[in-house]
């Protein structure tokens, strides 16, 4: 048995880098902080790979089952004898997989940013916060207990906020950061309450105890409590709200498109590959308890995932900002993962959806990061986010073109690229469990192919725009991550997830379901074909279509007005109907009451002071009468 204690260094190295760069970054050339950050992450990545190797192929498997191994654990804060927050590292298939994903993508982004962010003001700050983010995300996936997860969950939120508002002099970036933070914070409230309920029912925060399929925790809280759902279901649903917030599930998704205000590498790292899948990871982490004691909650997770994926895919078809298209695409893909979890059962082949979800998480991280970094390269070349400013770029950006194409093919599910495999597993899982969700996903598969290729054709084909200066290919330091991720996108589909990452740790075998696979590939191809017809050359068809489905088009273009609804709720209801009246109430009613006490006192004394006339005889008169009356009262009435 190998000691996994060193795994604590995987998150620790980035946080040390954060502190070092953050405190001393202004003292030396900015580029040095970039190298430092990258170096730190490289070390973390190396450690992660080593861990993955050790875990999956050497020691993780005991009697055919991947165990949960606590690599390191220390009590951080003690609430009661049973409830305490520990900080430590928990190794199991999903956390080790996430380690690999995060460190890989993060490393790529670090390298990429050396080129992309070159010469930016706040370069050191960028790398510091990037390290902070990596730390938080690694801490999150390694969490041994749900409260540790919550801690890092919050840290992830803050680093995301800092990165989105990186260009802090731009009001839209500031607003976007604020929005992201507050929306996810709102979701976190659900998470927190969920944690409180869960810990109240089960008396523990510890993942190992919580998710032990034979443990006591699973059995708790089964009885119906409120609205016909059990306490456990409510707790898990609330926790899922937290996950939905981070993973931008409908209707808590509104922050994600705006978050694209951040620098593009950040979008790739946080808002595509890592942070946004935290919600999926959370559900997967608690999957045992979801599946065994609150199947209703799991079903809801599935439906939310399905709705989100459809909803986002529809919107993605009409957006013009390339990063926003990618953002909605991310939402849609995460919806896929959630759906996969929702249609999964626990153990063996029942757990196909679980496996598929993790599989898709992995491949999606690769190709979506690739897409974003590619988009970054495009933006770097054109200095615009807007698709209408682009066209015919394939001549100028050959490398970007090829890698971007690979990524688009991957997401469209063209075999044998990785996207095909993982998406296929999800569709199979859905097909077996829930035909309705399967239908949605089937449709979304086509939409995905369509909007991705709409993007692709619009940017790389079509007419040349009048560029201020000829767009130039990105420097090698940016191209290397693109190529690396392209290779990963192509080949990661061959990783045998069925034997590595399963719901109960045991390997199972599943063949390719051709009855699902062939139609899904076909609909992907149809989507690509339609995009080809519409956008390869500029035609009038899209405009015609838009005008004939005006309502749908406008709704989709405006993201179905969800933002406006939120704005209405926050501005008109929270601000105008709660906060303002409270502030007014406080200043006028409560404070007015306090002031009126003072006023009454003042008023009374103003009236009483007339008695203090300074007239000696008046005093004497009152005094004598008073004495007489009192004497009378005491002697004759009270008879002392």
């Amino acid at each position, binding site marked *: 048995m190998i000691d996994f204690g060193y795994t604590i260094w995987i998150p620790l190295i980035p946080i040390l880098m954060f502190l070092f760069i953050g405190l001393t970054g202004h003292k030396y050339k900015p580029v040095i902080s970039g190298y430092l950050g990258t170096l730190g992450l490289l070390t973390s990545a190396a450690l992660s790979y080593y861990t993955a190797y050790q875990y999956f192929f050497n020691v993780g498997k005991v009697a055919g089952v991947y165990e949960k191994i606590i690599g390191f654990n220390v*009590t*951080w*804060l*003690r*609430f*009661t004898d049973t*409830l305490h*927050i520990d900080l430590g590292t928990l190794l199991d298939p999903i956390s080790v997989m996430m380690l690999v994903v995060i460190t890989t993508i993060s490393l790529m982004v670090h390298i990429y940013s050396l080129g992309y962010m070159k010469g930016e003001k706040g370069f050191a700050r960028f790398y510091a916060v990037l390290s902070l983010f990596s730390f938080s995300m690694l801490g999150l996936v390694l969490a041994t207990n749900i*409260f540790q997860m*919550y*801690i*890092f969950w*919050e*840290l992830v939120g*803050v680093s995301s*906020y800092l990165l989105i*508002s990186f260009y*802090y*002099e*731009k*009001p839209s970036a*500031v*607003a976007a*950061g*604020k929005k992201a*933070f*507050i929306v996810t*914070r*709102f979701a*976190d*409230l659900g998470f*927190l*309450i969920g944690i*409180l*309920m869960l*810990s*109240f029912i089960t008396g523990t925060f510890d993942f190992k105890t919580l998710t032990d399929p034979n443990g006591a925790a699973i059995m708790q809280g089964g009885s119906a409590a409120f609205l016909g759902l059990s306490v456990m279901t409510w707790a898990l649903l609330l926790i899922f709200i937290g996950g939905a917030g981070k993973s931008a599930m409908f209707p808590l998704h509104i922050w994600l498109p705006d978050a694209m205000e951040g620098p593009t590498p950040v979008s790739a790292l946080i808002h595509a590959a890592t942070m946004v899948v935290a919600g999926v990871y959370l559900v997967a982490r608690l999957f045992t308890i979801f599946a065994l004691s609150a199947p209703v909650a799991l079903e809801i997770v599935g439906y939310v995932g399905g709705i989100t994926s459809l909803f986002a895919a529809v919107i993605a078809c009409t957006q013009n900002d390339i990063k926003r298209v990618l953002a909605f695409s991310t939402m849609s893909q995460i919806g896929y993962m959630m759906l996969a979890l929702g249609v999964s059962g626990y153990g063996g082949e029942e757990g196909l959806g679980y496996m598929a979800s993790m599989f898709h998480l992995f491949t999606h991280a690769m190709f979506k990061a690739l897409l974003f970094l590619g988009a970054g390269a495009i933006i770097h070349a054109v200095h615009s986010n807007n698709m209408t400013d682009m066209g015919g770029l394939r001549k100028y950006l050959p490398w970007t073109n090829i890698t971007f194409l690979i990524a688009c093919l991957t997401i469209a599910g063209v075999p044998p690229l990785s996207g095909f495999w993982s998406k296929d597993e999800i569709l199979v899982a859905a097909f077996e469990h829930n035909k309705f969700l399967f239908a949605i996903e089937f449709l979304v598969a086509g939409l995905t192919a369509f909007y991705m290729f709409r993007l692709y054709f619009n940017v790389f084909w079509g007419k040349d725009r009048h560029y201020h200066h000829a767009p130039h290919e990105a420097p090698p330091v940016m191209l290397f991550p693109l190529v690396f991720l392209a290779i990963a996108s192509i080949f990661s589909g061959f990783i045998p997830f069925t034997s590595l990452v399963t719901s109960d740790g045991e390997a199972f075998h599943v063949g390719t379901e051709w009855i699902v696979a062939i139609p899904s590939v076909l609909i992907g191809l149809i989507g690509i074909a339609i995009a080809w017809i519409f956008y390869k050359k500029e035609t009038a068809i899209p405009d015609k279509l838009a005008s004939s489905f005006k309502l749908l088009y406008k709704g989709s273009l405006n993201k179905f007005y969800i933002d406006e609804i939120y704005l209405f709720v926050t501005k008109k209801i*929270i*601000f105008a109907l*709660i*906060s*303002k009246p*409270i*502030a007014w109430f*406080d200043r006028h009613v*409560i*404070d007015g*009451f*306090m*002031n009126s006490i*003072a006023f009454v006192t003042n008023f009374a004394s103003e009236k009483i002071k007339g008695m203090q006339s300074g007239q000696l005889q008046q005093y004497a008169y009152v005094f004598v009468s008073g004495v007489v009356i009192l004497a009378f009262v005491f002697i004759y009435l009270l008879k002392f």
Partner: protein
Amino acid sequence: MDILTLLIVIPVLTVIGILFCKDNKQVRVVSAIGMSIQLIQSIIVVLMYFAERKAGNTSEMVFTQTYMWFSSLNIKYAIGIDGISAVMILLTGIIIFTGVFASWNVKDLSKEFFISLILLATGVFGFFISLDMFTMFLFYEVAVIPMYLLIGIWGSGPKEYSAMKLTLMLMGGSALLLVGLLGIYFNSNPAGGELTWNILEIAKVKIPIEAQRLFFPLTFVGFGVLGALFPFHTWSPDGHASAPTAVSMLHAGVLMKLGGYGCFRIAMFLMPEAANEMGWIFIILTATSVVYGAFGAVVQKDLKYINAYSSVSHCGLVLFAVLMMNKTAMDGAIMQMISHGLMTALFFALIGMIYGRTHTRIITQMGGLMKIMPFLSVCYVIAGLASLGLPGLSGFVAEMTIFVGSFQHVDTFHRIVTIIACSSIVITAVYILRVVGILLLGPVKNDEFLKLKDAEWHEKLTTVVLICAIAGIGLAPLWLSDTISTSLAPIIDKISSASIF
């Protein structure tokens, strides 16, 4: 002289030293030296406390001393500390130390200013070490009265009004409190025999329930006024807005804690049965404080008002947790006092520094300060993050302990109220980010501000000390939490014996 009395003697000596000073510079230096010694002394007290515990002293209070000073009412100068008072003393030490540096630039009547400020701190130290209710009350008044002068003379805005309001409301609270304390005193020996003011002795007897019903609310509200209990919190926005920087720091940072500490040490500890019966009323009030203060802060425009309302919300959480009557929640309450003390002091220090430069506190008139004064801005962001409960800073530790503790309550009512109180974390995020967004980020609104300088050495010292303390608690909370919960054990024993749940 024993170590605890020294805590009072040093400030008094400093005050005497200031009396002999000739100019601003000397006053500052003497105050700084005195308060540095005081800080070191506070640290020593805490260390000695640990040493004493390590040596196996398990009595409830250590370093106890008793001297009679008014024998006909059996009023004694009885002192002693447990883990809770030890950490509160440390908090006070840190804040008065930073407060002196934050008021480095006070020019008019600086002698009188520092005398009042340090006198105030003396009262606070005395309050925390007292075991005798009357002596405690005496120190409480010593701490409250200089506030009037400090705000009324060195304040800004409608200072006389604010000073008057603050002092009158606090005095009103004191009046209730005095009645409550007298009530406890006259019931301190229901079996007959000598009456006592000593908290530890009273804790051994059970005050008759009828008396508790009468005096618990008086005591709780009396202390609650200082702890900004809704609806007696309105002195807080006005008072803080008008007070000079160091006074806001000390007031929000420490004085408001006297309220929470008193509620906990006297009202809850000595009258648990009544607390049990009537707790729900105050739980509703405090939960209202928490949410209401947060909502109130959302729309304010003046930095100090925002912070004052935020203090209402956070201090409400302290009282809320105290009322939950279980160890974890109370542990959280004490930590929240310390955490809020540090971060609100940091906030007010920063606001004072920003105001000293821009001469406005209206956030909409400022913008893009991050570019002009990055150091102060980053500190402000850190303070904000601490306030909204970012893990790794003290706020998170305290709030989570409170929430987890409160939610462990077996009664459903308490759990539901906890959920309501939890919702404040979202609203807190809203107003903190709103301020950060408007004030620090975005484009620079006023070109005049571009000339302003970043922090000077004494300002850096103030903020860095506070941030270190905040981060220290946030990163390694276990020692603090364990110290507090160990000391809470006897208190909880007494309280839980009265529990009806």
